[in-house]
């Protein structure tokens, strides 16, 4: 019998600490498989965020650096400039990237840093117990929005991919989801493409992965995937916003 599927060597042996059914685990696997399949894992350097993925440095089988909250793109900038041949990536949640780290991501993209950002948008601050994030949907409940997000009070959720796609040197920007097997396969293709874009030296690349937080959404993992599909995707449409083919 031949092996059809097994745990990639891009992941370390350590089991994830994530809650049951949390899609952070799927996204970790896709990143690790992509780096392994592109023969980049041995020299890759990742930057972990503050958020539920704070222990990402224990899970990837490559060098990892922890960054201060939201500052992963700045840390990755320094790493990539010193190690231009390594695949350098940041792995960041929506609280980390779209709130406290909003300036860092915009300016890393503007400078066209040759790094890849994996942006995990679960529309909430997961790690700290479910506060409202810039990405929380209108009407979505959070501990700091007990009646649901009110757009007149908290504004409208930030669409990071659309915003970054307006930046000339953000040469690959795609939004994907992991709510079923078909979308998981598509998500991996986008992650691979982003790393290829980086290694071709073309500029900044980002893949936004629409993700779940069953625990703070107060749903079972199965219900959370359904909620994602019915509520997140209409506001955060999937698709490619920038592609290297358009870039000279």
């Amino acid at each position, binding site marked *: 019998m*031949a*092996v059809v599927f097994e745990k990639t060597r891009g992941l370390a042996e350590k*089991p*994830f600490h994530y*809650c049951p059914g949390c899609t952070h*685990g799927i996204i970790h696997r896709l990143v690790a498989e992509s780096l392994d399949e592109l023969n980049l894992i041995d020299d890759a350097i990742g930057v972990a965020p503050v958020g539920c993925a704070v222990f990402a440095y224990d899970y990837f089988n490559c060098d990892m650096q922890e960054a201060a909250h939201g500052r992963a793109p700045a840390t990755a900038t320094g790493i990539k400039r010193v190690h231009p041949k390594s695949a350098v990536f940041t792995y960041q949640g929506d609280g980390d990237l779209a709130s406290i780290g909003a300036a860092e991501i915009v300016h890393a993209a503007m400078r066209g840093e040759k790094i890849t950002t994996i942006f995990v948008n679960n529309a909430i601050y997961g790690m700290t117990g479910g506060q409202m994030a810039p990405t929380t949907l209108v009407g979505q409940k959070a501990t700091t929005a007990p009646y649901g997000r009110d757009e007149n009070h908290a504004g409208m959720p930030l669409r990071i991919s659309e915003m970054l796609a307006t930046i000339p040197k953000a040469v690959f920007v795609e939004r994907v989801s992991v709510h079923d*097997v078909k979308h998981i396969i598509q998500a991996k293709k986008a992650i691979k493409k982003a790393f290829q874009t980086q290694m071709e030296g073309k500029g900044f690349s980002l893949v936004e992965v629409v993700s779940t937080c069953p625990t703070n959404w107060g749903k*079972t*993992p*199965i219900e959370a995937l359904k909620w994602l599909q019915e509520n997140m995707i209409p506001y955060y449409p999937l698709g490619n916003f920038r592609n290297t083919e358009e870039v000279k």
Partner: protein
Amino acid sequence: MAKVTFDENRCKGCELCTTVCPAKIVVMDKDRINIKGYHPATVKEMDKCTGCASCARMCPDVVIKVEK
């Protein structure tokens, strides 16, 4: 002939794998609990497995290995 194996003590009982199997053979084993205290996922009718690896791709905790 295809076969799936579960690294059972990594399983968190989330049930996501049970929703994607075209043969509907992935089930939670309600008779047992693993080291984490969850009912682990399992396959009882292995002869119906096509080796499609959908269960393994859906699993957030890299529990499942697929051979064909």
